[in-house]
Every structure is written in C-alpha cells, then in structure tokens.
C-alpha cells in the first residue's frame, strides 16, 4: 500500500506481515485476547438486564415471562459462562490496577501488592453488601 507524504511524494513503507492468528502463538497474547473478549459476555449481561427492565415496563405478565426465561437451564449455563468471563476480567483488571493508577504517598511510590489486595478487599466488601441488601431489602 503506498502513502502520500507531506510534500505529495509517494512512499512504500515496509510492513511486516502479521497473521490474523498472531495471538494464538504465545500464551501471554492469548490471555490478552481472552481478556478483551470477556467484554462480549459483559455486554451480553447488560443486554439481558436491559431486556428485563423493558419487560418490567410492560407489566407483571411480561416480567414474569422474563423471569421464567432466565430460570431456564440454557440461561443458567450462559450465566455461568458470563460469571467465568466476569471473574477473568476482575482478575486481570485488578492485576494491572497498580500500573493503570499508580499511587504515591509523599515521595514514596506505593508498592503494587497492597494496591491489588486493596481492590480485592473492596470487591469482596461490595459483593457481600450487594448480596445482603438483595436478601434483606
């Protein structure tokens, strides 16, 4: 593929050929790709909830049908897959948190481990809170 430079001359830069399956060859790249693709499941879960909200606006019969739908065996299997994807996202998200949001106290850089553990503690507390609120309220 040729390109135009600023003065209008054409140039043909060398592009190293890349196979579409480049991410299969190394475990690190495969993990990266799996992490990116967890978002498909995460997005799907939002669509399921959005459908539930839509059915809620239609009345008790429509919402009841949605509830029956999510109680079906295929739906539970699908949600277990979504759960697996979501957990993979959580692990990878927390692991890169120290690089994504480096913390500094005074002149000292906070080490990575406490930041990762802090995220897990926050997630555990929030999850427990959601579970308790869901059961009690």
């Amino acid at each position, binding site marked *: 593929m040729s390109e135009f430079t600023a003065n209008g001359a054409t140039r043909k830069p060398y592009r190293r050929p890349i196979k579409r399956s480049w991410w299969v060859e190394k475990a690190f790249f495969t993990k990266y790709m799996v992490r990116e693709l967890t978002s498909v499941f995460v*997005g799907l879960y939002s669509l399921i909830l959005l459908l539930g909200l*839509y059915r809620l606006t239609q009345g008790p019969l429509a919402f009841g049908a949605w509830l029956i739908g*999510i109680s079906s065996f295929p739906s539970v299997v699908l949600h277990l897959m979504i759960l697996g994807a979501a957990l993979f996202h959580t692990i990878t998200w927390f692991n890169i948190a120290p690089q994504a949001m480096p913390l500094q106290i005074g002149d000292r850089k906070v080490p990575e481990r406490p930041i990762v553990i802090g995220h897990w503690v926050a997630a555990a507390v929030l999850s427990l809170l*959601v579970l308790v609120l869901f*059961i009690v309220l």
Partner: protein
Amino acid sequence: MTKTHEPIVWSLFGAGGMLTAMLTPILVLITGVLVPIGIISPERMSYERMLAFAQNPLGKLVLLVIITLPLWHAAHRIYHAHHDFLIHTTKVHLALTYGLALLLSIVTVVLLLMVGF
C-alpha cells in the same frame, strides 16, 4: 467522531471496567444463578419488588449504572479488538460499538422514566 472522542469514551471504559470488575460477578451470580436455581427465593426478584426498586430514584441510578457502564466498557474493547484481528475500522464499526452503547444508554434512560416514580 474525531480523535477527541477518545478521552470521554476512555473514562466511560475505565469506569465501566472498574464497575464490572467490582460488581458484575456478584450480580451475575445472584440474578443468573442463585435466584434461577432457587438458592435465593425467586420472590426476591418478583415483579412488585423490582418495580419498586426501578421506581425509586436511587434504584434508578443503580440500574442506569449497572446496565450502561459495562456497555461502554464492552464497546471500547470490541471496537479496539478489530485492530487486533487486523480489521480496518470504519464509521460502521464506530456506529456498531460506541454508537450502539450510546443508543442503548438512551433506551435505558427512557425505560427508567417510563417505569414511573
């Protein structure tokens, strides 16, 4: 969209990523597994309870956040994954990812208003 869309959508992606990391596992476990198989009583997710939750202003905010932020997160990752599969992205890809996230966010707001107060 020009290059300037990146900071806005990146912050939505970041917020969505954090919310998803913190809360999506427990939400999926409750609504997709524990309630359907009856470990938590399906009564907890009855029409009356969910309607009351969706009509409460705080409940509306919770629903808005847990439905829309992960959509922006997914849109961002799916859009950029095209590049990883050596697919040149066009305006069509933008429309089908960020555009769809925007559209579904608007739909969520409309439904949250339609469900009443």
